[in-house]
C-alpha cells in the first residue's frame, strides 16, 4: 500500500467535494452504504414520461449491482432489518431515482481524487447515475499516485472487448448558469468514497 498516495487521494477527493470515510473491510463498507441509504432524506423522485408525474414513493432503496452472492445475501439480511430495499439488478425500472447506490472501484488515482470503475455493466452504470448518493468502495492498496501510474491498468482494460472504464471524481456538477457551481444536475448529488483497509 502506498500511504502517501492514500493521503493525497483523501486530500484531492475532498477538494472535489467527495466525502471520504475509512472502513476495515468490504462487509463494513456494505454496512456504511446501508447506513447512508437509511439516513438519506427520501429521494426526490422524477417523472419518467414527459408531462407525467413521479411515481408514488416506496421504501428507501440502495442499489448494489455486481456483488458476490454471499455479500449480497449479507447486505440483504441487514437491509431487511433496516427497512431498506436492496436493488441488485433491473435498474432500468428505477429511472425515477433512488436514495443510494454502492459500487466497487478497481483503482484510485490520487493526483485527482479519482475512482476508476471498470467493466461496468449497464446496471452498474445506471445505479451510479440514478442514485442521489453514490457510495464507492475503494481498497487502499488499489490507490496509485496518478494517471501515469494508472496507465498500465487503463491500457490493459481497454485492450479487452466491449469494456467500459469510467473515471469518477466527485458528484455530477454544472456551472452552466452564471458559472455558479451546483451539484447534482443529472447524476448523484453527492459522492462518498469508502476507503477499505484490507
Amino acid at each position, binding site marked *: 500500500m502506498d500511504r502517501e498516495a492514500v493521503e493525497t487521494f483523501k486530500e*484531492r477527493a475532498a*477538494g*472535489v467535494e467527495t466525502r471520504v470515510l475509512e472502513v476495515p473491510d468490504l462487509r463494513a463498507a456494505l454496512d456504511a452504504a446501508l447506513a447512508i441509504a437509511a439516513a438519506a432524506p427520501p429521494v*426526490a423522485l*422524477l*417523472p*419518467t*414520461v*414527459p*408531462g*407525467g408525474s413521479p411515481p408514488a414513493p416506496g421504501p428507501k432503496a440502495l442499489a448494489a449491482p455486481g456483488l458476490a452472492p454471499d455479500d449480497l445475501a449479507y447486505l440483504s439480511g441487514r437491509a431487511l432489518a433496516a427497512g431498506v430495499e436492496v436493488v441488485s439488478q433491473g435498474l*432500468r425500472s428505477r*429511472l*425515477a*431515482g433512488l436514495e443510494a447506490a454502492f459500487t466497487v472501484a478497481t483503482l484510485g488515482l490520487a*493526483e*485527482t*481524487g*479519482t475512482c476508476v470503475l471498470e467493466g461496468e455493466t*449497464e446496471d452498474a*452504470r*445506471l445505479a*451510479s*447515475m440514478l442514485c442521489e448518493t453514490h457510495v464507492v468502495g475503494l481498497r487502499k492498496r488499489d490507490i496509485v499516485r496518478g*494517471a*501515469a501510474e494508472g*496507465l498500465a491498468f*487503463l*491500457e490493459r*482494460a*481497454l*485492450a*479487452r*472487448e*466491449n*469494456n*467500459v*472504464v*469510467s*473515471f*469518477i*471524481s*466527485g*458528484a*455530477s*456538477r*454544472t*456551472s*452552466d*448558469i*452564471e*458559472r*455558479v457551481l*451546483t451539484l*447534482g*444536475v*443529472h*447524476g*448523484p448529488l453527492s459522492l462518498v468514497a469508502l476507503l477499505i483497509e484490507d
Partner: protein
Amino acid sequence: MDHKPPSRGRLDRRPRDFHGSLREALADSFLRETLDRFADQYKANRAAVFEGLPERELIARVSAMKDGALGRIEELYGDFAAKARAKGLIVHRAKTAAEAASLISDIATRAGAKNVIKSKSMTAEEIGLNEALAAAGCDVAETDLGEWIIQLRHEAPSHMVLPAIHLSRHQVAEEFQRVTKAPQDGDIGRLVKVARRELRPRFAQADMAVTGANFAVADSGTLGLCTNEGNARLALTLPRVRVSLLGLDKLVPTAADALSILRVLPRNATAQPITTYVSWLAGATPGQTAHAVFLDNGRTGLLADAKCREALRCVRCGACANVCPVYRFVGGHRMGYVYIGAIGLILTYFFHGKGRAEDLIGNCVGCEACKDVCAAGIDLTGIISEIRARISDANGAPATSTLLSLVMPNRRLFHGLLKLARLAQKPVTKGAYVRHLPAILSGDHGFKALPAMADRPFRDAWPEIEAQDLGPKAGPRVALMSGCAQDFVYPAHLEAAVRLIRAKGGRALFPMDQGCCGLPLTMMGERKAALRAARANLLAFSRAAGDYVTGLCPSCLNQMKNRYPALFADDPVLGPLAQGLARRLMDFSSLLAGPLGYGPGDLSDSGLRVAYHSPCHLGRGLGVTGPPRRLVALAGRYLPTPGEDVCCGFGGTYSLRFPEISKALMDKKLDGLAASGADLLVTDCPGCVLQLGGGEEVRDKKIPVRHLSEFLALNLKTP
C-alpha cells in the same frame, strides 16, 4: 429586464450589421460584467490548478503528440476502424458536414428512432445536426444544461465549454417558466433541479443518443469522453442506439496520448484537475447498436496546409476565448461562428468559408494572449495573420490599405508623407496632442486625443545627436530600431534611450536606411508589402555594426525576432541573416538590466507611486516581464495593479477599425489606474503610450503616462 437577447439565432448566426452588433454587445452590461468577472477568476483559478506542475512541458507534450498523430492520421483512422469494428462498433466517415448530418439522420430513420437525446458536441453544431434530425422527423433534446437552455432560446452557444455564459439566471428562469408553465425564481440550485426533472423523462424515452468525443484511441478502438454533468454517461447507457460524432483530428495513437491531453484539457478549460466523469468505451456495449462518425469537413485540407495545419492540434478547451480581451468585451456570438475565440476565427475560415470569416478575422487585436495560454501550443496569432493575408489577397485590399501598402515599404516615400502629415495637422494641434480631430476621425474615434507629429523626427536629429558623442567607448555598441511611431511622434523616447545607453559607457548607433518593421502591414493583411518592408529592414540592420539591436517598440522587436526568421525561412541568403538578427536582438529593458548593468544607485528616487502596463508584444511576444518592473522600482515605488498584462486596445490600425472595442479595452485599464492611487503610469511601447496617454488626455483627472525610457532618463543620477 435590461438584457436583450443577442441578435444571432441558430439559423442566422452572423449578425448583418457587424459594427452595430458589436456596439450592442458592448452596451450589454450583464454580458460585460459576467465576462469580466470570468476573465479575472479564470486567470487566478488556472494559475492555481497548474501550480506545482510543469505547465509548459505538459503543453509541449500535447503539441508534439498531436503533430505526430496528425502526420499519420489516415493510418490512425485505419487502425481505429479495424480495432473498433472488431469490438462491434460501426465506424463511418463523412467528407462534408452535409454528408455527416444525413448519415446520422439515416441512422435514426433506419432505427425508427424518434426521440433523440444529445450531449454537448461542438462538432454537431458544426454540421447543423439538430436541424437535420428535426427535418428527419426526430424530436431532439439537448441534455447538457447550458446547451438545453440555448436550445430552448433558439440560440447558438457563445462559448465552447460554457455555452450559455451570456445569459443571466433571470433569463434562464424566464425560459424555464415557459417550459414548466409554473413560476420560477432566479435561485440557481432550483433552476438546476428543474433541468433534472424535465430532462429525466427525455433520457427515459430516448431511442437514440448523439454525443461528441474528446479522444479516439487508435490502438484499442476506444472513444473517450469528458463531462461534468454526467449527461453523456446516462445518454451512452440508456438508448438502444448511440452515435458518437467526432472530427478526424480527435484520433490519438494510444491511451497514454489521450491521458497527456487529459492532464491539460480540464485544467485549461475550467481550471479543474479533471472533469467529474471521463468515460472510456472500448468498442460497442452489449444491448446497444453503437456508431462512430468521423468528420472531415475541411480537416484533411487544413492538414495539407503547412502554414495553418497546427490549428488541428486544438483540443477545444476554450481557453483562447477565456483570455481574449476582445471576447471579454463582445462575447462569443461576435468572436466566432460555431467555434469561438481565436480558434473560432481560424476554424470558421477553414470549415465555414471565407465569407463567414471576413468580418470576424479583423476582430483580433493581435495581443497574443491566446497563443500564450493554448493547451496545444498553437501559434494562433500567427495563423490569424496568415488568414487575414489570404482574405486580403483574395479580395484585393480596400483603397486606404492599398495606398498604405504601396507607401509604407518605401521608406523615403512613407517618411516624406509623414512629414507632410505634420504640416497638414498644423491648424488643429495644441501642444502635444491634436485637439480637434479632422472629420474623418471624429465620432467613434474621438475617445482619445491623438498625438501630434513631432516637429523634427528622430532621424533628422540623429546626425547632431551622434556628433555629441564620438569618443571611444568601453561599453556595448547598440543599434537602435526606431519604429515609425517613435521616429515621428515620440523622438524624445529615443533621445532618452540614447542618454541611458551613453550613461553606462555604451555607444548608440542608428542605421539610417531602416524603415517600417512590417507589422502594421501584416495586420492589414498586406502580405507582399509586409515582406518588402521586412526585407529592407533586415538588410539595414544586418549591415549595421552593433553588439545588440534594440528598440523601444516591442511590437517591432517581436516582429523582427519572432516573425522574420519564419518569413525568410526558405531564403538561403536572408534566412541566416534573419536568424543572426534575432540572436543579436534584445528588448530595451533586458539590455538596461543586463549588459548595460543598471542597478540600485544608478537612478534617483522620483518619490512617485508608479503603475506599470505590460505591452502584449513585450510580456507575451518576447516573454519579458521581470526587467521592466525591476527598472521601474529603481526610480519609484512600483505599484502592482490588476490586469497589468491585459491589452490596452491599441493594436495599431485596430483602434481605427474597431474603435468601439478599442475604447472599451482602454477604459477598463484607465478606470483601474484611477482607482489604484498611482501618480504615474509607465509602459514601454509607443502604441500603448499613444493609446493610454491619449485616453488620459481626455479624462478629467489626468494621470501622466510615460515610456520607460523617458521615466528612467529623467531620474538618471549622471545626466
